């Protein structure tokens, strides 16, 4: 069988759309009859779903530039990997997931890319609709460039696109409170609702953790894994939650904040810091970053609890 190396034979996300609708409705109904844990606030849900719809439109605006760039890189590839070889699919699975991990980590730890990604974290709820609260500015932020080395190496663009779609669909179903935990072996290898709840939490303990796409092994390898603790329920959202449900504010607020900071910058150092420092960076250190929030939290724990060492052990073990 010959597969087109440029145009994907199918888009996993398109195929999954009916599943998205059915499972969101099912989660709501099950929660309504107290058969599953889920909280839906109607305006929050509308915001999440409108962001998903808007991201489809925004994607169309940058698709041309991204497509042309990908084709150009593929024309200058080092090797030609076959689309019909099983080992090539195994390789693309692992390499795409590793690329996703670093894309996602960058999107949290550097403000320029956080500005694009933050909208996904702005809901104070964690349900299947939250999964669809997708970025409008990812194309402009340029995070797609991180996948170009795979194309340059010789993975067909269609193969990478299909694997990216599979990863996106996989990450959909883990946005739920309805599933507590899977068997230990599954939690050890795969990204799960429990791991991803931690990722969406704003508790200082849980900040900047669990960046995985499909495999949680990357977080364990690179020191960003933090387990969910029953004694500390996740509080969802961002450190400074949004003031309303305006979808344009959801999409652009961090870009606006960057613009405001840049307008007040007094040196190149400040410009670079505001753009590429961690979210919350400020020249005088007067604002909080994840690191300072965690440090303050650890100090509070140490001050109030004689067993603070035990309380913070999982965090420290993960670092």
């Amino acid at each position, binding site marked *: 069988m010959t597969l087109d190396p440029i145009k994907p034979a199918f888009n996993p996300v398109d195929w999954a759309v009916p599943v998205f*609708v059915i499972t969101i409705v099912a989660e709501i109904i099950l929660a309504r009859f107290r058969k599953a844990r889920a*909280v839906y606030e109607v305006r929050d849900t509308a915001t999440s779903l409108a962001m998903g719809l808007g991201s489809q439109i925004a994607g169309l605006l940058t698709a041309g530039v991204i497509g042309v760039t990908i084709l150009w890189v593929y024309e200058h590839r080092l090797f030609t990997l076959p689309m019909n070889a099983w080992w090539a699919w195994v390789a693309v699975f692992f390499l795409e997931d590793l690329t996703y991990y670093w894309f996602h980590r960058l999107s949290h730890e550097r403000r320029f890319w956080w500005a694009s990604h933050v909208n996904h974290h702005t809901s104070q709820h964690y349900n299947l609709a939250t999964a669809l609260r997708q970025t409008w500015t990812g194309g402009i932020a340029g995070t797609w460039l991180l996948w170009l080395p795979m194309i340059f190496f010789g993975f067909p663009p269609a193969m990478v696109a299909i694997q990216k779609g599979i990863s996106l669909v996989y990450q959909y179903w883990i946005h739920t409170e309805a599933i507590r935990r899977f068997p230990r072996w599954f939690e050890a290898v795969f990204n799960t609702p429990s791991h991803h709840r931690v990722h969406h939490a704003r508790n200082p303990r849980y900040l900047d953790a669990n960046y995985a796409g499909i495999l949680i092994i990357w977080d364990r390898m690179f020191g960003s894994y933090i387990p969910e603790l029953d004694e500390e329920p996740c*509080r969802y959202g961002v450190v400074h939650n*949004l003031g309303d449900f305006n979808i344009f*504010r959801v999409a652009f607020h961090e870009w*606006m904040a960057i613009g*405001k900071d840049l307008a007040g910058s007094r040196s190149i150092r400040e410009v670079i810091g505001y753009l590429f420092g961690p979210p919350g960076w400020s020249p005088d250190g007067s604002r909080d970053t994840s690191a300072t929030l965690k440090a303050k939290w650890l100090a509070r724990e140490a001050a109030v609890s004689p067993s603070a060492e035990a309380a913070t052990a999982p965090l420290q073990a993960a670092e």
Partner: protein
Amino acid sequence: MNAVLLQLTASAVLVAFMILVAGLARIARPVAPLDEASARALLAGEFPDLPPNYLWIAGDGAGVIARAGEDALVAYRLGDSWVARSMPWPLALSAPVKRGKVLLKLRDPAAPMARLTVSGVNPWPPENPREALAA
């Protein structure tokens, strides 16, 4: 192009359907109006390093302004959740009241303005500003 428009239209219809189902289900978190204890608990979660020493609760219980040193800690309800910010206390004290709401400029593109309900029993600024100022 027609296929794209058709796909977007279908997506919009499905989105409207899911919002309708979410609205009918009424499974948001229950949120009671704030009283002093719940306001303190809320602020302790949002500003753990800034214990408030003066508290003003909005007339409808949907917001709070607290003083912690030179900072005003502001929190207000959004849907079934809360939004919190801090601002200089003198700016909070001088915030205007219009149409029964105190308007607090939060100077943040993510949450530019808080509008908290003022009542006759609990006016803003506080009737006894000495208490608030001295706190």
